[in-house]
């Protein structure tokens, strides 16, 4: 197993710069997830690490050794592709053995390794079938088996679950997590689904437009998002963003005026505080905003537009501040509210996050 280091990696396709100076360190045995919206460069970054694309500038080191000029096959990596990329004219056994045959491994060793990987992934009965005779989940496992057989230093997964249906996705997710625990391998996983990221990762790298927005453990990203983009990306349903104005500020606290007039004191950790009167954005997650017990506790008034009753919990959608801003609340249990009702919303200051005009977070 191995460590990976990216130093100021830049990738340009012709005149277009796709990856803007990415720095990253992956420890041995870590499960790192690259997550971000479509087109953010996560797959490109994975292909750069893999060696299928070459960097324009910047360094990639595996176990401390630079691999920029090392061919993809010699970097000791294995990749599981989004569309599995199984050789359709070969059986499962041949698919898994192909890599080892190419480097001249003795037949007996190949047989043993294929059998071992097949047993691990429950593919024993399928070894003589062709990929077209397998289901999506089985093909997925064959693709993973092909990677395991090569005993790579780092496993790379490129959105492997996006072609599976929802139920299969859940079971495959836990299989991959179990595999990680069993093999104790360094794994880099690319996805656009933040639920996968939150449930599987030791460390999440959030990417946008070829830049790293934030790196951290899943709960760190949830509790202390560095900027508005990360705050809105992590967590489902999405965080509510309300316009607010800075009224007073001192070291460690900012007092803001909410739409509707109420004041709120929010903790900040940044040394520089913007000028009084600056427009800021208040972020509060739907699950943190609570219906006010008494009218005097309410920081905002929410006019309900829609209710999603899921039985165990309810999503209340509505508007605040005279209908301009949309807001969602996530409460436990069932609700007797109806569309058109007005509900008082209390915002616990500890859960509120402030973002300045440039979308950077004021609390770290």
């Amino acid at each position, binding site marked *: 197993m191995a460590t990976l280091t990216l130093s100021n990696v830049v990738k340009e396709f012709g005149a277009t710069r796709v990856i803007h100076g990415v720095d990253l360190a992956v420890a041995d045995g870590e499960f790192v997830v690259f997550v971000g919206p479509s087109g953010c460069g996560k797959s490109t970054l994975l292909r750069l690490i*893999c060696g*299928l694309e070459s960097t324009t500038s910047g360094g990639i080191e595996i176990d401390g050794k630079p691999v920029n000029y090392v061919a*993809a*096959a010699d970097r000791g*990596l*294995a*990749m599981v*592709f*989004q*569309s*599995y*990329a*199984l*050789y*359709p*004219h070969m059986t499962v056994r041949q698919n898994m053995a*192909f*890599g080892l045959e*190419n*480097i001249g491994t003795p037949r007996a060793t190949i047989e043993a390794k294929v059998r071992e990987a097949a047993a691990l992934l429950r593919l024993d009965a399928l070894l003589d079938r062709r*990929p*077209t005779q397998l289901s999506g989940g089985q*093909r997925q496992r064959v693709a993973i088996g*092909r990677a395991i057989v*090569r005993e790579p230093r780092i496993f790379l997964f490129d959105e492997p679950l996006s072609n599976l249906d929802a139920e299969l996705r859940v079971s495959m997710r836990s299989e991959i997590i179990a595999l990680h625990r069993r093999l104790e391998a360094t794994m880099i996983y690319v996805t656009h689904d933040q639920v996968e990221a939150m449930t599987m990762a030791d460390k999440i790298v959030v990417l946008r437009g070829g830049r790293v927005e934030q790196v951290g453990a899943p709960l760190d990203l949830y509790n202390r998002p560095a900027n508005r983009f990360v705050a809105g990306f992590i967590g489902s349903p999405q965080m509510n963003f309300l316009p607010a104005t800075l009224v007073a500020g001192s070291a460690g606290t900012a007092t803001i005026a909410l739409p509707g007039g109420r004041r709120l004191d929010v903790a900040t950790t940044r040394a520089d505080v913007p000028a009084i009167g600056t427009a800021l954005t208040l972020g509060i997650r739907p699950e943190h905003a609570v219906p006010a017990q008494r009218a005097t506790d309410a920081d905002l008034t929410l006019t309900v537009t829609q209710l999603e009753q899921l039985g165990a919990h309810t999503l209340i959608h509505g508007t605040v501040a005279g209908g301009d801003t949309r807001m969602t609340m996530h409460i436990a249990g069932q609700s007797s509210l109806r569309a058109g009702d007005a509900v008082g919303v209390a915002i616990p200051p500890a859960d509120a996050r402030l973002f300045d005009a440039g979308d950077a977070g004021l609390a770290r």
Partner: protein
Amino acid sequence: MIGFFTRTRGQGRLDWTDWFTYGYLTIGLFLMFGPVAWLVLSSFKTESAITEFPPRLLPMGQKQVAVPGEEKPRPVYRVTLPDGTTRELAELRRIGLTSTMVDPSRPDEPIRVPIDQRTPVREFKLATENYTDLAGKFDFGRYLWNSVFITIVATVLTLLFNSMAAFALSKYRFSGQRTVFLLILSTLMVPPTIVLVPNFLVVSELGLLNSLWGVIWPAVATPTGVFLLRQYMLTLPDELIDAARLDHASEWRIYWRIVLPLTAPALAVLAIFSVMWRWNDFLWPLVVLSKSEKFTLQLALNAFQGDLVTQWNYLLAMTVITLLPVTLVFAFLQKFVTQGIASAGVK
């Protein structure tokens, strides 16, 4: 099969569209298949039967019967006797206007019959000597071998070279790629007749004149083949090649073990084209080959057409033989092509 051929729209009764459909299908069948059927049947006729008028469809030969006392079988005629009856008699010999005929069951009683009183009794008979004579008469085996050799070797080489070019043009990115591809395609605009003399001079310089290799090599790299295979290879996912690269496969292995097997349907199509074209190729072998022992079947067929006389029976027999291999190859490869396309769920 029967169900397929008797399918109608009217569910038991015949709709007017059924009449129309079956009508034009039958006409089409006769138009397309008629000449071929005529060719095959005529190849079993004797020379005189071919040139007789009015023409008959089936090969008919005169009935012959063994007469005791005679070495060879004697032809049978239907004879009108002076008393008005008709009998079938075997002719022993004919002198002038009188024919000596005999009833085979009573060979000792010859009957004299004027020749205008008899008509030949014909029966369906295949003149297989058209085919058997060929084997002995001229060097048919050699011509067949030349044709087969040229066709098979040229097809294999064509598939090999064209697929390599197509692989490079479809799966690799290099500067000048588009130019190279356009150059290859632009040679399609040059009629082969224009480059006939330059080609001949080049082949002559290389010392390949009057050899089968001189026929094979010049046309191995075809723009049609490269184009066809490139378009098909473009549909192969690049991820397969990436996965193979990660699997330590060398470029040759990627080509030989991954790309080529997956291109099989397009290769089958190109093989059909190549076989059909090479087998029927006439002009280029005519130019290159000058000694008759190197002739292909097509050139040999040409030799049967003399200035004054054409031996139609042998010509037809040889044409049928020339048609057979191409038909077989086509039938065999066509099944492979459709199978390949149907099972090409590349995932």
